[in-house]
């Protein structure tokens, strides 16, 4: 019997009839359109969060200058900035955006296996964003509880947005989790079931491995956030006492008794730590592919890279309490979690070494995507090393709640994944839009962003060591802090404004190039992976024309000795010449 690819059994060689505008661009079931929808919404809310951070920097850099920012506003900005960036931008853009776009194309499928549910996933995500943004317009404004939403303060009067704001936040998170679950079921099932002929698990590009593992983490970890959101909503609305202890608030006893705020922290961080890797693993995967493609060299230690992704994913579930060293816990627990935390450094370091070794003696093309990928290695190493400090209980306790922590997590899970996102957008933009962006603008965008983030976050580590506390609206006159702290704060703010303005260059470049960019060739980077081998650019609905591709090799056949071109696409059967494991050409 002739082999029929599994991905083709349902769809057959069906011809996609032209659909109307609404079904092509709005209620679309095409994974590529859904990916772009996810991307646009995520970037839009990301811009909202960027503006919020600018407002925060106005206040921090120049206290007592801007009367329109009061302490309540400041806490609301902090909270919404954090939550939007972590969940509604990074998670949504990596998995909803790039996951959707890349999975079917890279594994050689026509679409996700449940296209209808995929469409629903986006619209439910959109609803979650609307509910979240609605909280800006309700009485009391959005919640100002901090992105961790710790009870009891999150629901107590006195915290900004303690009424409707926090409820809308919790409801929005619940809706987001539903959307993520629908998307996640699609990503996992598509990767497991709809790979084209020849695409074994160990021939999948690392981007797919990263997205796949991150999705599994998300599917298992988001329920913890759902549980805590539901219980906190009940505490806030019906007056139950899951998390709320007996509280005397503003002279009144509230009805709660016996609830455990610590329980919330455990649940929150059981989600919250894997969340770091939900964002980081797709970034790891994508950056591996960018480095390999633009250095014209196979990824160093592919198998080890896959294992490291899986190991990091597994370990990420047993380290959550390192976020709670100062919440009070048995010292042996602290010891356990410090150990597991430091163990994660092993697979992570393997990945960093392998990236560097991939670059070593490569034919490096300093294209814009490559610059962002190399920039990522720098910021990730810096952010990761400070993580080793904070993973130790004794070092963490004095540094906790200082700007050292702010510097650390922005470097490791703010800037690093965002640099990869930029690299990825520049890398796949020619395929998505069929046009090239402006290279000079792209390079300017890179340098301003890369150097600018160092100007922002590196000084924060010093501020933290001096003891500047985080979450403060204004430092006021503080004896133990030297005057220079204020000068540093002002300079950080100015750097932040420059970086924020640089993002306008990026947006302008994206939009302008849609019409005025040079037409892109189908495979401008001469890359091996399947998405560059589609018959059309941008790929049409159904991706592959009448026949699905067949894969004959792994994704990293760059600069193969003896080959005619310096890359061999995955679907190229080749000239029958095999290679041994050491990269030598077999004598035939």
């Amino acid at each position, binding site marked *: 019997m002739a082999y029929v690819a599994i991905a083709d059994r349902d769809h057959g060689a069906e011809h996609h009839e032209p659909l109307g505008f609404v079904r092509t661009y709005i209620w679309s079931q095409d994974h590529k359109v859904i990916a772009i929808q996810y991307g646009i919404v995520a970037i839009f809310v990301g811009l909202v969060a960027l503006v919020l951070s600018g407002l925060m920097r106005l206040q921090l850099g120049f206290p007592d200058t801007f009367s329109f920012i009061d302490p309540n506003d400041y806490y609301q900005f902090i909270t919404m900035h954090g939550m939007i960036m972590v969940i509604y931008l990074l998670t949504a853009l990596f998995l909803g955006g790039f996951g959707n776009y890349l999975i079917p194309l890279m594994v050689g499928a026509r679409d996700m296996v449940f296209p209808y549910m995929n469409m629903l996933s986006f619209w439910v995500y959109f609803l979650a964003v609307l509910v979240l943004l609605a909280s800006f317009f309700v009485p009391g404004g959005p919640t100002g509880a901090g992105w961790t939403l710790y009870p009891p303060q999150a629901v107590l009067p006195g915290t900004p947005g303690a009424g409707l704001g926090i409820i809308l936040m919790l409801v929005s998170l619940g809706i987001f989790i539903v959307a993520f679950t629908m998307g996640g*079921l*699609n990503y996992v099932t598509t990767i*497991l079931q709809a790979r084209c002929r*020849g695409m074994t698990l160990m021939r999948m590009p690392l981007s797919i491995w990263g997205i796949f593992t991150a999705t*599994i983490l998300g*599917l*298992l970890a988001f329920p913890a956030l759902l549980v805590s959101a539901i219980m906190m909503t009940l505490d806030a609305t019906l007056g*139950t006492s*899951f998390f709320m202890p007996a509280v005397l608030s503003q002279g009144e006893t509230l009805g709660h008794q016996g609830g455990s705020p610590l329980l919330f922290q455990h649940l929150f961080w059981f989600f919250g730590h894997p969340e770091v890797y939900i964002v980081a693993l797709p970034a790891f995967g994508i950056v591996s592919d960018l480095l390999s493609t633009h250095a014209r060299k196979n990824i160093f230690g*592919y198998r080890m890279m896959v294992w490291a992704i899986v190991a990091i994913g597994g370990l990420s579930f047993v380290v959550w309490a390192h976020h709670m060293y100062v919440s009070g816990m048995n010292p042996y627990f602290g010891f356990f979690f410090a150990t597991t935390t430091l163990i994660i450094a092993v697979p992570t370091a393997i990945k960093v070494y392998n990236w560097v070794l991939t670059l070593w003696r490569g034919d490096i093309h300093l294209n814009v995507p490559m610059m962002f990928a190399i920039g990522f290695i720098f910021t990730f190493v810096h952010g990761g090393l400070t993580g080793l400090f904070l993973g130790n209980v004794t070092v963490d306790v004095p540094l906790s709640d200082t700007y050292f922590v702010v510097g650390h997590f922005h470097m490791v899970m703010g800037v690093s994944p965002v640099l990869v996102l930029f690299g990825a957008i520049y890398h796949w933009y020619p395929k998505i839009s069929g046009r090239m962006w402006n290279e000079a603008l792209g390079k300017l965008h890179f340098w301003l962003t890369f150097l600018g983030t160092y100007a922002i976050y590196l000084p924060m580590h010093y501020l933290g060591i001096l003891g500047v506390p985080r979450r403060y609206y204004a430092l006021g006159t503080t004896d133990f802090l030297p005057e220079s702290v204020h000068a540093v704060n002002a300079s950080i703010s100015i750097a932040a404004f420059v970086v924020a303005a640089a993002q306008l260059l990026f947006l302008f470049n994206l939009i302008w190039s849609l019409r005025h960019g040079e037409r892109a060739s189908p495979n401008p980077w001469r890359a091996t992976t399947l998405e560059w081998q589609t018959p059309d650019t941008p790929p049409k609905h159904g991706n592959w024309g009448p026949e699905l591709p067949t894969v004959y090799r792994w994704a990293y056949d760059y600069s193969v000795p003896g080959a005619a071109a310096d890359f061999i696409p995955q679907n190229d059967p080749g000239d029958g010449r095999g290679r041994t494991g050491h990269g030598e050409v077999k004598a035939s």
Partner: protein
Amino acid sequence: MFTALIAGVIVWLLVASRLTARSWEDPGEAGNGGGVAMAPARIGLWVFMAVATSLFSLFLSAYLMRMHHGFWCHVDPPRILWLNTSLLVLASVAFQRARGAVDRGQKGQVRSSLAAGGVLTLAFLAGQFLAWRELAPTMYFIQGSPATASFHLLTGVHGLHVLGGLWAWGRVVARLGGGAELIDVRLGVQLCTVYWHFLLVVWLVLFATLSTT
């Protein structure tokens, strides 16, 4: 946490054999290494059940941890839960019979078993509702005992999952009523059966925990 570990071990066992492939050494061979030869809906359901298992485990962990904090008084679960449990067991049995009948091609029995399964499940939900009513007046739900609140929360979330199952059941029944052949509903019946067994296991664990703590 244990769920995650167990899920991790299972996934690992499933993929370990393939993860040792030396993919850089064997270009030129297409092989058969495409996707898993299993219906997408079946994989989707199993992944979904893993997510739901994670959700219920976390709810139970939260419940058990909350128990050890203050102001917890034990609530005897209403006796009607025993009846409800047997209804859900019977529903599971009915689905199993429907599944067998599909394989044997007995359309009449498929219809009757599916109908029985659905009706028994609806009766289970009605019974759960009565249990809610029974507990509500004896304790203050609002600002009341966290045990009662947990009872409502856990049974409520389980009930929502049952409703989701009934939606899938409704689709299968509608297709069968619309004259679909058995072969067209075979997968649907099988998946419903798997999901009902899952719901039953979750319920037994919840019921046991609520009764003994």
